[in-house]
């Protein structure tokens, strides 16, 4: 059995091993294990995937394959303030793309990425059901309505104060 080179601390490692044990270290429970692991760590770095592969007696390649297949699983930590721009029909038609471009320009990240200082991460959402407020942007749990490209920098400033 290959041993693993990890930079996790003992406590987190034990918690991760407990998660695997909770599912009887069964290979078939990989997705459930990954959900809990992502909840524990906030994301799924390579080291965590290697530990899971070892515990569930499967290959790291297989775990990585599952992580990359489902968009919910992420290998990059989410920012302190996750920004999601709604790309549903109403928001799109009312200029959501321009709002997204402005966020990309100001934060200097692409969709799915996190700023180097860990403060913001950018992603797209499907319809949140607040179409009367289109275009809609969510920062964490807070909903911003009628966002214009000019208003983007104000939103960002609100979180960098």
């Amino acid at each position, binding site marked *: 059995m290959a041993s693993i080179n*990890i930079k996790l601390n003992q406590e987190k490692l034990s918690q991760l091993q407990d998660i695997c044990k909770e599912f009887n270290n069964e290979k078939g429970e990989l997705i459930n294990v990954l959900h809990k692991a992502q909840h524990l760590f906030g994301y799924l770095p390579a080291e965590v995937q290697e530990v899971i592969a070892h515990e569930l007696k499967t290959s790291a390649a297989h775990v990585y394959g599952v992580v990359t297949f489902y968009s919910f699983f992420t290998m990059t930590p989410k920012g302190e303030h996750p920004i999601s721009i709604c790309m549903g029909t109403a928001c799109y038609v009312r200029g959501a793309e321009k709002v997204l471009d402005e966020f990309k320009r100001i934060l200097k990240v692409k969709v799915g990425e996190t700023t180097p200082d860990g403060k913001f991460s950018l992603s797209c959402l499907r319809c949140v059901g607040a179409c009367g407020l289109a275009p809609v942007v969510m920062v964490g749990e807070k909903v911003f309505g009628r966002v214009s490209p000019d208003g983007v920098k104000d939103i960002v400033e609100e979180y960098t104060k």
Partner: protein
Amino acid sequence: MEMIKVTIDNKVIEVEKGTSILDAAHSVGINIPTLCYLHLHDLNITNKPAGCRVCVVEVKGRRNLAPACVTECTPGMEVNTHNIRVLNSRKTVLELILSDHPTDCLICPKSGSCDLQTLAQEMGIRQIRYQGEQSKYREDTSPAIIRDVDKCIMCRRCEMMCNDVQTVGVLSAVNRGFMAVVAPAFERNLDHSECTYCGQCVAVCPTGALTEVDHTNNVIRALADPSKTVIVQTAPAVRAALGEEFGMEAGTLVTGKMAAALRRLGFDYVFDTDFAADLTIMEEGTELLDRIARHLGGDKTVKLPILTSCCPGWVNFFEHQFPDMIDIPSTARSPQQMFGSIAKTYFAEKLGIKRENMVVVSIMPCLAKKYECSRDEFKVDGNPDVDFAVSTRELAHLIKQANIDFNGLPDEDFDQPLGESTGASIIFGATGGVIEAATRTAYEVFTGKKLEKVDFEQLRGMEWIRRAEVDFDGTPIKIGIAHGLGNARKLLEEIRDGKADFHAIEIMACPGGCIGGGGQPLHHGDSSILKARTAAIYREDVGKPIRKSHENPFIQKLYEEFLGKPCSHKSHHLLHTHYFDRSNPVEIE
């Protein structure tokens, strides 16, 4: 065994319930084209993800077309395999696959042996109507295997071989949709993974996505260099398969023509790896007998079973995956490496030349050998014992490039003193052969008696794991044999769990042994080719006047003149090695 009646292309046939439409059609000579499907019948290896949709057929009463490889026949089923609806669909499927495939057939290493290319030809594709974005992934070059996944059609054969057969677990499908590729964990390169370079992925890849590192240009340059003495060694499994690249039937022995071709290519000396295989038996056999003698004498510290160590794919496997057991394999080097070591010392001395002016080329059925000769412990002051390992396929290309008429060549002999070999050495190419060769010598040394019958059928065959006993004149010697790394894993776990009751175990990474190596002519899914090659190996053995390694007069001379005796200080220095823990150590803060 319930039999049912089905109609395929208006032919009424009777098949066993559960038979796929593909197999049913095949049984009456209707060969539905396939692409991702792979069935190595004699080895029970199957890949049928039904992903490519090339084998679709029309089934009466079914709204959509059915993939023949996975659709089971039902009583009264009516199938049409090539009406216009089916033909149009197949062509569309192919065009879609080709729409995201590089069109560099002219310079692709797989040209001429590519399943996709052949299919496009047979289906008469004359245009690719679907134009769009093309996948652009980086090329990954390792010491032995090149990954060019722009050419990958996601057939999953490599993934199946690596995970299910070899259980190395390097490859997996990652990402989704257009971005999907087959890659190692975290999309690292192969040389940063646990890849053993066994090359079984290359052996089954239908396109140019997985190919070998090509050393033909290096060989041509060496041959053209007047300051170099270029010598070549040929592995046993090559002579049983090389002929296939020249239109000969699988299982044709071409030893004589191979030597003649190599001579015409310009090699200064044409030698035989089999010579070094006899040498390996001397060294490893001595080691085996020493361990057995100590064990029978009550020594509790001696490590048994002894494991063979001539297969570099297998060595990589246990260095990565079973590093806690690196003290049980034999310390003997592989025949390829023993040859190089002796060539650049004993033979260079005889010629009066420096080792830097000798280039040793090996012709191997194996891709891991390319990696093996680059290992630092097989170099002296940076100069490798074996400079280039070239596969059977590359040799065929070299012969064709030099416009040598292979089929018209006379049979020639190898040169001496490193070209003489026994029947024991030739069977190294098949699973069970190494241990049988060792047995022939070990028996006589252990018992002091002459071995009348040298054939040990109980060690032969294609079953994945074989357990046999050989009677050493009253002492039963227990032998285990495995081919395919997944089966090696099973035996290693038995050893680790203390359940293994063997004196010696032979492991070969490739299914069938070296005859099924990653560098051999492609079998394209026909496992009868592997069986034919195996039969050829044992035929050559029977045809040899000397069939026991220790009776090779040139081996005896080598010990007399140079090495002293097996496992002597000099033999240890030149012909033995040690192993490394290549797993990743645990580091917890």
